[in-house]
């Protein structure tokens, strides 16, 4: 027998592609599956003249060779990425009680809605006459989002919550400028999400932190001290990131408004209050929504989402353009740009297909359904929190809304087991962990948001899993938790090494 051809065994000349079922094995990087000259692509027959590269591009501009990319068969491509998916948890696999993220079930209906060719095939620069369906969809979505938030007008351009925040702050800026007032600071509670201060900086403002009081709510006295004629406004999440409703909201709004500031609503937690309370009715002037939280746009491993911003009447003229509007005379939709627009936020019209998902989700639920969504979300969280009363500390123990923050400080003190370890151990019990170490004002924070789409039984099972894991830690001194997770494609990863070696792209060995 001849010897095995080297070509078939050298690393980086096309690795084998197969996997143990739900491989615990390391999966090759797609470049490692590459074999020079292999190809899976095909292109339509066009009948075009077959000019070669040199005839098409002058030497000065032409590369010598195309960029290095993997050369794999379609079969290996499919196997590779399918195996990658088998190494990933998802809402579709089970509960995902990740606080602040609203990992609810994303109806399959919305996948279909956002992939109809009449929507996906439309070029964003086509004239409005050719895109009446899209303009109508966007206009109706703006309208319903305003109804849900109690605002007057909206822009759908921001691609995510953080971009919504920046948009909102730029609106704030434009409004103050129009008033002829120069403001330099934006107030933000210490419990706020990191995007809030980061957006403030990008908007050219300075962040001023408002402390929380013993209840976990905005410290009214401190707020009174902080509001002055330098503040452009206050950014608030309500319910806040502790899952608590800011019950002093009317007074907060009064204080900010009296000082000439605007009130910004971070809509990350809107899921808790749909149909029950509206930001507009609480006095907010600017509201962003995370459609990928409240309105079931799937998170896609980190995006895309959509972060529309709705505003009170007095801010409408500053909104980004173009916006869709129904022309009463012709009964056709047209694009309009508000007179004092801050300008575009997005290269086109926002994450349009994500907007179509949210639109279909809203149609399916309706006003009544959205309210039920909020109620069930709060009920699940309230139930789970009560079930865990003896398991965790609750430094801020007001009635929770759609999520709650427990502290594992008690567990850590008794056993040395940190929130992180408990989280990793919970994975082995079949649940995605809660958000860890946020908000910053809670020690060993575990932020739990079951969402409304989990059944009561699943919520109860989560409670039991938490109980088990904590009881075990108390019993074994953390042996199991420290070793966790052991049921995942990889065990505990080394974050420090990653930052140290900084391998950010694949290179041949």
């Amino acid at each position, binding site marked *: 027998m001849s010897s095995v051809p080297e070509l078939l065994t050298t690393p980086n000349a096309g690795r084998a592609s197969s996997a143990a079922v739900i491989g615990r094995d390391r999966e090759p990087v797609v*470049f490692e599956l590459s074999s020079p000259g292999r190809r899976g692509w095909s292109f339509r027959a066009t009948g075009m003249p077959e000019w070669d590269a040199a005839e098409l591009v002058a030497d000065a501009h032409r590369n010598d060779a*195309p960029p*290095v990319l993997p050369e794999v068969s379609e079969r290996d491509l499919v196997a590779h990425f399918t195996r990658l998916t088998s190494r*990933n948890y998802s809402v579709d696999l089970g509960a995902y009680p990740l606080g602040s993220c609203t990992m609810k079930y994303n109806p399959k209906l919305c996948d279909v809605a956002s992939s109809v060719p009449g929507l996906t095939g*439309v070029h964003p620069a086509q004239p409005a006459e050719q895109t009446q369906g899209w303009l109508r969809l966007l206009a109706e979505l703006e309208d319903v989002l305003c109804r849900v938030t109690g605002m007057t007008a909206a822009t759908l351009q921001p691609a995510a919550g953080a971009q919504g925040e920046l948009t909102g702050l730029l609106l704030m800026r434009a409004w103050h400028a129009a008033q002829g007032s120069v403001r330099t600071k934006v107030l933000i509670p210490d419990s706020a999400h990191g995007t809030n201060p980061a957006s403030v900086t990008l908007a050219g403002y300075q962040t001023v932190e408002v402390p929380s009081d013993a209840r976990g709510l905005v410290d009214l006295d401190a707020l009174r001290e902080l509001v002055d004629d330098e503040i452009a406004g206050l950014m608030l999440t309500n319910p806040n990131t502790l899952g608590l409703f800011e019950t002093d909201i009317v007074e907060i709004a009064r204080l900010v408004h009296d000082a000439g500031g605007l009130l910004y609503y971070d809509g990350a937690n809107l899921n808790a209050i749909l149909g029950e309370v509206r930001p507009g009715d609480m006095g907010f002037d600017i509201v962003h929504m*995370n459609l990928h939280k409240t309105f079931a746009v799937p998170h896609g491993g980190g995006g895309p989402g959509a972060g529309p911003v709705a505003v009170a009447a007095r801010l409408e003229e500053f909104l980004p353009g173009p916006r869709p509007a129904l022309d009463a005379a012709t009964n056709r939709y047209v694009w309009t740009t508000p007179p004092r627009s*801050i300008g575009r936020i997005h290269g086109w019209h926002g994450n349009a297909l994500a907007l179509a998902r949210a639109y279909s989700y809203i*149609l399916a639920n*309706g006003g009544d359904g959205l309210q039920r969504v909020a109620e069930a979300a709060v009920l699940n969280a309230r139930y789970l929190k009560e079930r865990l009363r003896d398991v965790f500390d609750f430094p801020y123990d007001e009635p929770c809304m759609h999520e709650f923050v427990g502290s594992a400080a008690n567990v850590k003190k008794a056993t040395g087991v940190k929130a992180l370890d408990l989280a990793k151990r919970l994975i082995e019990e079949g649940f995605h962990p809660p958000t860890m170490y946020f908000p910053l004002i809670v020690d060993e924070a575990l932020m739990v948001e079951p969402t409304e789409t989990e059944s009561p039984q699943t919520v109860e099972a989560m409670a039991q899993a938490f109980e088990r894991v904590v009881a075990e830690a108390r019993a074994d001194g953390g042996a199991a938790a420290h070793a966790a997770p052991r049921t995942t494609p*990889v065990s505990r990863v080394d974050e420090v090494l990653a930052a140290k070696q900084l391998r950010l792209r694949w290179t041949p060995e």
Partner: protein
Amino acid sequence: MGHYVPHTEAELAAMLGFLGLESLDDLYAHIPDAVRLAGGLDVAPGASESDVLARIDALGAANQPAAGGFVSFAGFGAYEHELPAAVRALTFRSEFVTSYTPYQAELSQGVLQALFEYQTMISSLFGLDVANASLYDGASAAVEGLNLAAAATRRKVAWVSAAVHPNVREVIRTLTAPRLELREAPIVDGVTRWPDDLGDAAAVLVAYPNVLGCLEDVADAARRAHDAGALLVAYADPVAAGLLRSVGSLGADVAVGEGQPFGTPLGFGGPYVGLFATRQAPYVRRWLPGRLVGETLDADERRAYVLTLSTREQHIRRADASSNVCTNQTLIAIAAAIHLAWLGSSGLRELAVRCARGARYAREQLVRIPGVEPLADTPTLYEFGLRTPVPAATVLERLAEEGYLGGVDLAPHYPELGNALLLAVTETRTKAEVDGFAAAFEKAVR
């Protein structure tokens, strides 16, 4: 009423009972009446799945899609390309679609590795060391590029070529207004005319090819930028990278761009994906915006991936973060990675060649038409401008009646160019389609 809340009446009662509450309304009892909404939302009640889809279908039918409806020559930053079935099928695997940002690395190796591969491919396309794990779109990537340059140089002035896409320039204006000072370099015969003195610029932004499809002298722009102590930020077309020199090799410090051509349909402009790459040192550790996946080991010394350098990011550094981006466009980035792997080196070259062939052929047919002239004498790749004897809007209207989306009217963006039409030809157009189009065009410009 929707149909996604699982709780039965009996279960609601049991849970409320456990909490000592009597009704769902009681859950909100602590909220001041003054802000409670009485009577529910003024929004139509829920509809069945079929009814929703019927509504969506009707809206879709009220559009005339470029892809699938018209024979389209529209480009201008958004391109119709063939979308391989495998790319769509893999992208829409629900583990990719319904997972969150991979904060829990052990549960997220699929997304993390896909992003690591994406980073590798994008840095390869641009000839730079490191790409991040995606930004919102090309426009926001351009903004982040200028922000990085401003942070790295501690300067505030950015020179932007007028031949950067007008929407991108507008987004830049909107988002940098409170912080940066923008200067615009004009277009002369299709390419940017840079001023001799760039002053104390932080950044120079050039597009390659530019919005008119013309090939800029990127190396020259880089030299000028570097001479002035500025960074060169290149807004680079990733399809063109199959044929053109990489912007990294031409001296760009940061490459940004729009990743839509890979794996994503036109979709009325989104979700697309902002590409972002730069040199590792000195930019990555402190100033790179957005998420980054790094290779590491797990507790059993197996190769693994994890989000890294999060100290740059908003959730750690808050007001001092390199950017405010949190949710990005991961799924679209994964689609791009899958499409790029489907193409491979040879496929990307072939794609670029086919686009360029189609464009050359179309251009040759169209400029033969009396009164139709190229907008500039500069070489183009697969997008090009034409000057027409009648306003481009009129041409487009007439062509639409014949079933053609004839391109994009440049007049609203560049009135100084006169009757100017921008056309792109991708691998999706056949010679027969171009021939038909040229005939229709000839009539339309009369």
